[in-house]
């Protein structure tokens, strides 16, 4: 690249980094309004969850047959969305894809926001949240739920490290550059920057550590979603009882995560004038990436549905009828066609990989990804092997109640609050990595 940047040029560039990184943290336009909105959602969530605690899960639409519903679907979605941190920062980073550098922090923030809340989402689904500690007191290692708890805690820890570690030089930089910040903020930067001096030795350790984390996060992230898929695949129910669920879920998670990153990139770019970092090229590349993972996902979908549909074994047949032409056909085909098929085709054209267009597609893909989780969870439960009889009519169907929706919305609000705060407190651009790429690390680390 531009190895031969002059001293002046380098200084200008570093100054620009500082300005661009600090701008989102200073610019509070709409921040209060946004947080106020999320706060309001949280209040509704609190009331809804209070009702659920008081009256038990009877306030949901779940009953003995559809015993998992929106909450579990939501949990799967959160886990899926958090997987993207691994994909972009670790996998592409290890593959030496230079273009992902500016996006890494965005993806790590999304990962962190969603994985921190995923654990809470699963608690909202528990009949006895007061007994949560039983998982540790009486945990049975044979249970996929205990595996899930383990991997989620592990992934949260790794994601936090992988978020904090690359922040060290940037925080030291911001600490030097940012004027008139509140004391607490300075304090945070001071502690988290670990007395970073920018010495060669420190850089060596930093690179080594990041590399270690990038490698170890790959299997952990794969297992977080694979184990989540085993919550379903480890049962004997038609529609869940399939060996492909692990990779199927992982591919789906890549799709959802990539879409989430595109949306967040667009918001940051248009709100904080970060066009120089989230360039059209980045959107183009993210579009290609989304096509790639969508194709992968489509491939798994074909395997997941075509193979059993070819055989139409009794239990599977009932399930597939429901999806293909039964009660869930509308949702199913919308998700498959509008949420997966058409986006793949559209995104193959350069025009649709432009920022605004791509973001539009990403929003559709993300919504479809959420609905897909419901389609995975609910229809299977509606069709057990033995008929549903001698129970009220309500047991034969499932449509979430407002309380379930409010609790789900609350979970989203929490994740978005975390993401927003992280964006406000920490620089969203990994400046030192860009500087390193441009060969101006010396200028970047220059103490004033």
């Amino acid at each position: 690249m531009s190895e031969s940047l002059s001293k002046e040029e380098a200084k200008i560039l570093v100054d620009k980094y500082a300005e661009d990184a600090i701008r989102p943290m200073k610019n509070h336009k709409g921040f209060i309004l946004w947080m106020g909105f999320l706060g309001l959602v949280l209040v509704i969530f609190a009331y809804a969850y209070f009702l659920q605690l008081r009256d038990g899960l009877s306030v949901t639409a779940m009953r003995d047959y559809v015993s998992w519903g929106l909450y579990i679907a939501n949990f799967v979605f959160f886990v899926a969305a958090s997987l993207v941190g691994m994909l972009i920062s670790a996998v592409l980073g290890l593959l030496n894809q230079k273009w992902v550098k500016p996006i890494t922090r965005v993806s790590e923030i999304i990962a962190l926001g969603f994985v921190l809340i995923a654990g809470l989402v699963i608690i909202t689904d528990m009949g006895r949240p007061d007994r949560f500690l039983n998982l540790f007191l009486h945990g049975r290692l044979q249970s996929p739920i205990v595996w899930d708890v383990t991997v989620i805690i592990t992934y949260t820890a790794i994601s936090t490290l992988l978020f904090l570690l690359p922040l060290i030089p940037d925080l030291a930089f911001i600490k030097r550059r940012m004027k008139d910040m509140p004391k607490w903020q300075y304090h945070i930067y001071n502690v988290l920057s670990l007395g970073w001096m920018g010495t060669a030795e420190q850089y060596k350790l930093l690179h080594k550590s990041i590399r270690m984390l990038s490698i170890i996060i790959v299997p952990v992230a794969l297992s977080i979603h694979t184990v989540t898929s085993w919550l379903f695949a480890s049962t004997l129910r038609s529609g869940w009882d399939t060996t492909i669920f692990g990779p199927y879920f992982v591919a789906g998670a890549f799709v959802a995560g990539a879409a989430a990153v595109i949306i967040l990139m667009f918001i940051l770019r248009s709100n904080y004038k970060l066009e120089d970092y989230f360039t059209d090229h980045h959107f183009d590349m993210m579009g290609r990436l989304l096509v790639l993972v969508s194709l992968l996902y489509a491939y798994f979908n074909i395997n997941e549905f075509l193979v059993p549909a070819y055989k139409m074994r009794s239990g599977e047949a009932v399930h597939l009828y429901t999806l293909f032409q039964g009660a869930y056909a509308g949702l199913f085909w919308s998700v498959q066609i509008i949420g997966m098929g058409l986006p793949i085709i559209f995104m193959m054209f350069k025009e649709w990989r432009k920022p605004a267009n791509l973001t539009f597609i990403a929003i559709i893909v993300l919504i479809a990804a959420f609905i897909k989780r419901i389609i995975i969870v609910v229809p299977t439960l509606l069709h057990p092997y033995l008929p549903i009889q001698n129970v009220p009519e309500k047991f034969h169907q499932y449509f979430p109640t407002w309380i379930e929706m409010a609790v789900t919305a609350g979970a989203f609000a929490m994740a978005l609050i975390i993401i927003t705060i992280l964006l406000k407190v920490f620089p969203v651009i990994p400046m030192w990595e860009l500087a390193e790429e441009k060969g101006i690390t010396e200028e970047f680390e220059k103490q004033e």
Partner: protein
Amino acid sequence: MSDKKSKNNSRREFLKIGSLFGVGVAAAGAAAYSGFASQDGHGTSGETILSESEQKIKVLTEDGTLAEIKASELTPIKKDEYTDALQSQGREGIAGKHWAMVIDLSRCRNVRACMASCQNAHHLRDEQHHINVLRMQDDRNTEPYFMPKPCFHCDNPPCTKVCPVDATFKRQDGIVLIDNERCIGCRFCIAACPYSARVFNWFEPKDAEKDEELLYNVELNVPQKKGTVSKCLFSADRLREGKLPYCVSACPNGVYYFGDLNEDAVTNGTSGETVRFSELIRQNAGYTLMPELGTKPNVYYLPPKNRMFPFEFKGKTTLDDEHHG
């Protein structure tokens, strides 16, 4: 047969009083598991009985004998100890037994006395079925039939496999129980059970207020608790007393046989007739439901052949259900 109902009631009365004051009886040589009301009606509160030292009190000892001792000699067991004793015996099971049930489909005519007595014994809501009589039809050209479906107490139970907290477990006598003091309400076991044999307490349980002072008996799963799973227990509490399960003895049509596979004998709940399990299964082509799932059920069915009653039901059968479209 006629006193079956009253037996159920007295059993429940027993537990209720037992919960008010667990008593230990040194004289009887064993810890007493349930107190028993004294004859002259002072049985409503533990304190009254304990204060009147001259009174004699009837107690049921662990081995099932009814004994009478002076009230002053009673030593109350702490509530915790009593619960612990119930828990540990409930989790252990009855040594040397392997319980199994045989359901003769040719005799079932949808009377549902089994369902009623079960719901009654376990304080279940109307829509909660530990045992559910289903209307089955396997194929368009086959005859419909009624099929009572309890928990199958599988030898390879998919439900206990997935429990994250050891709340549902398999005992040495093969019974799969649920401990609702431990259950966190994740409902993974409900998802895992291919026979839909488990129910959840979505609402406050039916007798929640009335049962408040009851001590929890894991073998009866009473009192039921909101936010926990409940399931068929093969009436583990009754087996301990040498009695047949609630559903088995409630059936007026001789549908159910119940017994111990290690004795190769099952007893019909209606006629009391005991037959060899292996012969019964062999001669009547007994089978288990969906053996291809590998769950190894302990509930066997005898095919609905030579039916004693015509299938009289004006409603949907399995085949009519929308999902078999």
